């Protein structure tokens, strides 16, 4: 079985701060990580491979340093990695990213049985690229997958919903976006780690994918960022301290004054 996992390198949102004067993200020195949900997607792929054999390919679109994320994936057990990178792809929103990634998937020679994505990327939180690629590539798609079993013609998938779950039968090739609860991550393997360091990672750019120039990068993106700003801070807050009984008394007095209690 051939599985492709799309992984994105993101800044660790735990460590990003915002400069309240310039309204810019302080990204300097912030480590890059594999998008956490994509790690679960990769783990799902590796578990399917452990059970049924086959090959796991990881694909990432981003600047040249996204190669690091791909090497990490190799050290976890992915068999092959492809970097999709070109200055012309820069500034892409989810529409243009979906389009470009799809061209890369179409260039992969072996027929793909399953394409996995994280539920969402933690930098943009959009959760759109999975469904976008699935449509462009022409396969059925299920979001928020928690479990995936191989069946005769495809997969049986458990999808987390707002109130419980759905169980689906989906034919292959198929695409899934994977939630955190899907699995526990494995540790990198030392021998694979060494091999990953030396692995050749092909980089596919504009000339390799031959895209419609109108549909890539910043100009191919229907959405534009108009403005960024720091989240507002509450101004008239009241901080109480002292004896618990007194604090609570004052709190309740104030809540009643506001008529919320």
């Amino acid at each position, binding site marked *: 079985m051939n599985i492709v996992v799309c992984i994105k390198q993101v800044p660790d949102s735990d460590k990003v701060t915002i400069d309240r004067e310039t309204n810019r993200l302080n990204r300097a020195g912030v480590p890059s990580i594999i998008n956490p949900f994509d790690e679960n997607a990769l783990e799902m792929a590796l578990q399917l491979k452990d059970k049924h054999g086959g090959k796991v390919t990881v694909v990432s679109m981003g600047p040249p340093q996204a190669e690091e994320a791909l090497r990490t994936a190799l050290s976890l057990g992915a068999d092959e990695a492809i970097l999709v990178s070109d200055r012309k792809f820069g500034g892409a929103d989810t529409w243009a990213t979906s389009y470009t990634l799809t061209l890369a998937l179409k260039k992969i020679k072996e027929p793909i049985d399953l394409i996995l994505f994280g539920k969402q990327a933690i930098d943009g939180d959009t959760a759109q690229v999975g469904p976008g690629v699935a449509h462009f590539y022409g396969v059925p798609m299920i979001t928020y997958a928690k479990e995936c079993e191989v069946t005769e013609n495809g997969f049986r998938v458990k999808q987390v919903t707002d109130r*419980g779950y759905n169980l689906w039968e989906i034919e292959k090739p198929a695409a899934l976006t994977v939630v955190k609860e899907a699995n526990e991550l494995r540790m990198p393997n030392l021998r694979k780690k060494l091999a990953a360091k030396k692995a050749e990672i092909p980089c596919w750019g504009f000339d390799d994918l031959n895209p419609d120039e109108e549909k890539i990068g910043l100009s191919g993106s229907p959405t534009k960022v108009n*403005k960024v700003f720091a989240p507002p801070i509450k101004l008239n807050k009241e901080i109480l301290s002292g004896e618990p009984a007194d604090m609570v008394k004052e709190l309740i007095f104030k809540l009643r004054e506001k008529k919320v209690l």
Partner: protein
Amino acid sequence: MSTKKEIWVYAEQENGKLAGTVFELLSEGRKLAEKSGFTLCALLASADGKPMHQELFNYGAKKIYNVEDPKLVTYQNDYFAKVVDQLLKSEEPEIVLYGASTIGRSIAPTVAVMGWAGLTADCTELDFDTERNILLQTRPAFGGNIMATIICPDHRPQMATVRSNVFKKEKVGEAETGEVVDITVDLSDVPERMKRIESVEEEINMVDLKAAEYIVSGGRGIGGPENFDKIEKLASTLGGAVGASRATVDAGWISHHHQVGQTGKTVCPLIYVACGISGAIQHLAGMQSADLIIAINKDPDAPIFDVADFGLVGDLHEVVPEFTKQIEALKA
């Protein structure tokens, strides 16, 4: 661009029951309609739409695009995406809003790429720029560290998914009327590539965090699973539900159904009481729009105090039971 001056709300339904966010979207859509002068419409794809029409009118829809087909009972991405895509292309609305639910987050990105529409995910604020005729879509990014306003200047429709429990629902009246436009979409050529074999609601008997007016949440600061007792007591005295930070869920102290935050639930109660929660940005992402936030933490520098209306600096093991006691006294 010769689009129709209409704002559409995607009326998400399953088994003839509209999702709660539909009413929040209509309420917010009404404000946008007033500001832009556009008509507020609902797109309803279902097996039998009529029983749902009155409710849609009551929340402000002036027009319902009604598509019926037996295949549209429960959600199946291929069918619903074809319906929405076809209508967007034939009717050309200016703006389309979807709930950021499991369903909304499947259908919206699919139809966005079927056309060439912009889609902004998980908005928490919407506004209309009357000068440029564009929708201003504001949303948190980078785990809530930053807010971004996104626009879609050159492509139509302008589409957004909207977080649930961020906008308040407001009914217009009980017997509002409007126009119904019936449209037929041929689904016979859509291949059946996936089939739903089971659908289970696990949370039926659980406190519904999303609907709760009062939420008391516990974080790692409570010290151990047994101390959720104190949290539960305060919650039940207030008549509310129990929430939790991810740290407590990860530690196995409470089930993930209670988790509030970026990877948990977004909630919007009247009062949110955070006990022993530091206020990591990912937690704030899920509760910041509560009407009133009370934080109890022994560290005066905890970031949770930045978003609190009232902060109580102290040991929660004393403060929380005291809070419960005084409210009980009040009710007696």
